[in-house]
């Protein structure tokens, strides 16, 4: 191996290419093999298996019934609608909040910026249960913040911020989503070349023109990429909701979970719901990436 590479540098290009290809086939593919095998066996095969099984009922007869159920049974239709609304709301809160935090972070001295960004990387590894617990203590019916506000304004105990309804759930998920977006957008803001803005100003652009033609075109592709991550993550999220309200809220993700592992055990149905979830996420990701590409082209 080493001698081949050494001689390859000295020999003409043609030979070098052949040698490179040969060594590539030997070493590189071999190194990729464990990864491909693992992913194939434990991710791709199970997914295909699930897709196939979703086309059979529990007795093993071929049927589209599981998919017809998804679009006709009210419980599933409501679940899809709720999931779309919830994922959109949580992504928007995360997207706007995270962009705001990142915009502030890049204006700080580098020491404090690094501190803030490290802090905002922390929620990435936190269990959904940990965050649920934290917010129950903080904002549950007798949570600390609710008590403080009630005492301060002398309110009756019937007044409290309701953590266990949609706005509360979105707020708890924001604790994951805002930091996630902050990390994506901080990288985007750092790529925004200040001299570009200066140049535009020197050429006589008004503030709104600077935003419209310089800042937004640079930021938007990154923003949309961040939104894809937000939306995809939120479509599949259920741990924190489960810890907060159990099955009291109807989400597509919770339906999949309950059909896969709880009382309403029906794996082919869970598989069909999961395929629909993949399809919805896939369409959303494709739309966002199409939008980003279109904007990138118009920006240049």
């Amino acid at each position, binding site marked *: *191996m*080493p001698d081949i*590479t*050494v001689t390859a*540098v000295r020999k003409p290009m043609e030979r070098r290419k052949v040698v490179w290809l040969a060594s*590539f086939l030997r*070493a*590189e593919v071999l190194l*990729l093999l*464990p*990864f491909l095998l*693992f*992913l194939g066996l*434990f*991710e791709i*095969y*199970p*997914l295909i*298996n*699930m897709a196939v*099984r979703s086309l059979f009922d529990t007795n093993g007869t071929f049927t589209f019934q599981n998919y017809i159920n998804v679009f006709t049974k009210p419980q599933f239709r409501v679940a899809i609608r709720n999931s779309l609304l919830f994922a959109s709301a949580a992504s928007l809160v995360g997207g706007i909040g995270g962009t705001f*935090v990142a915009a*502030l972070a890049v204006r*700080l001295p580098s020491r404090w910026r*690094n501190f*803030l960004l490290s*802090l905002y990387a*922390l929620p*990435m*590894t*936190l*269990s*959904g*249960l*940990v965050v649920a*617990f*934290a917010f129950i*203590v*903080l904002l549950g019916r007798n949570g600390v913040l609710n*008590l403080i506000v009630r005492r301060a304004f002398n309110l009756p105990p019937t007044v409290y911020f309701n953590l266990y309804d949609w706005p509360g759930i979105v707020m708890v998920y924001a*604790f994951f989503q805002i930091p996630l977006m902050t990390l994506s957008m901080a990288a985007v803001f750092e790529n925004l070349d200040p001299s570009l803005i200066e140049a535009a100003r020197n050429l006589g652009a008004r503030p709104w023109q600077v935003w419209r033609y310089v800042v937004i075109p640079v930021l938007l592709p990154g923003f949309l990429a961040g939104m894809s*991550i937000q939306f*995809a*993550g939120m479509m*599949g*999220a259920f*741990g924190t909701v489960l*810890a907060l309200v159990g099955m009291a809220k109807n989400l597509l993700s919770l339906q*999949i*979970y309950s059909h*896969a*592992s709880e009382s309403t055990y029906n*794996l082919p149905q869970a*598989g069909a719901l*999961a395929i629909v*979830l*993949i399809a919805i*996420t*896939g369409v959303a*990701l494709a739309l966002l990436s199409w939008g980003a590409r279109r904007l990138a082209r118009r920006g240049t």
Partner: protein
Amino acid sequence: MIRWILFVFLVLYIVVPMLMPVIFSFSVFWQDILPQGFTLRWYEAILTRPANYEALLVSLTVASSAVLLNVLITVPAAYALNRMASKWGQRLREGAMILPLIFPPLVVGTALLQAFTRPPLALTGTLWMVIIAHTILGFPFMFRIVLAAFQTIDERTLSEAAASLGANLWQRMRYVLIPNVLPGILSGALLVFAISMGEFEVTSMVAGFTAQTLPLRLFQQIRNDMRVASAITAFLIYVSFLSFMLMSYLGARMRRLRAL
């Protein structure tokens, strides 16, 4: 001035919720605005109650195994994919990043659950299944960090330089590549470990009664005993926090090395 007020507010936004379980876990009871008393009883409950202690051991086993598997699978793959200059290489690199977005943990869990129910691979409900699931969940994070490490050290130029000095593949690995990307691998390992320790969603789907991890235990305790739950929650926060302290230390070291 406004900037610094906002800064403090943003720091509190993360720190205050994280402090709640920690304060809760050290107090005798907390019914009013302020907690009362100081105790280590709830931490003791993790170590002395067999169900909790076993869950802790299971979690540590699963997290370490997921880290080990990820290092074995992802590091060679990141090395190989970093060298693929072709369009295919680019596509594979992007695909590996997008995979977890299209197939979220929930979907992977549902699929894993029904794929390995029969011999020779009757894994559903065993510890193996949990380890495999956590390896898959951790892989994108590991891959991104290690790939970035290979890219920042400009692995190809470095390898070629070493090769032209007569170093063979083993020597290049041992003396040039591994030392240079080690901080990246360690960062990835810490991230995978922390994620695995806290993972609840997929675990609750694929784990049977034999593989109860700490977060699964926590889920039950949130309904039964908030005080023991607070100690488990606080413990998981410490794990995340320590991992991130180590990771930012490694990150700072990497930046210093690059500056030299």
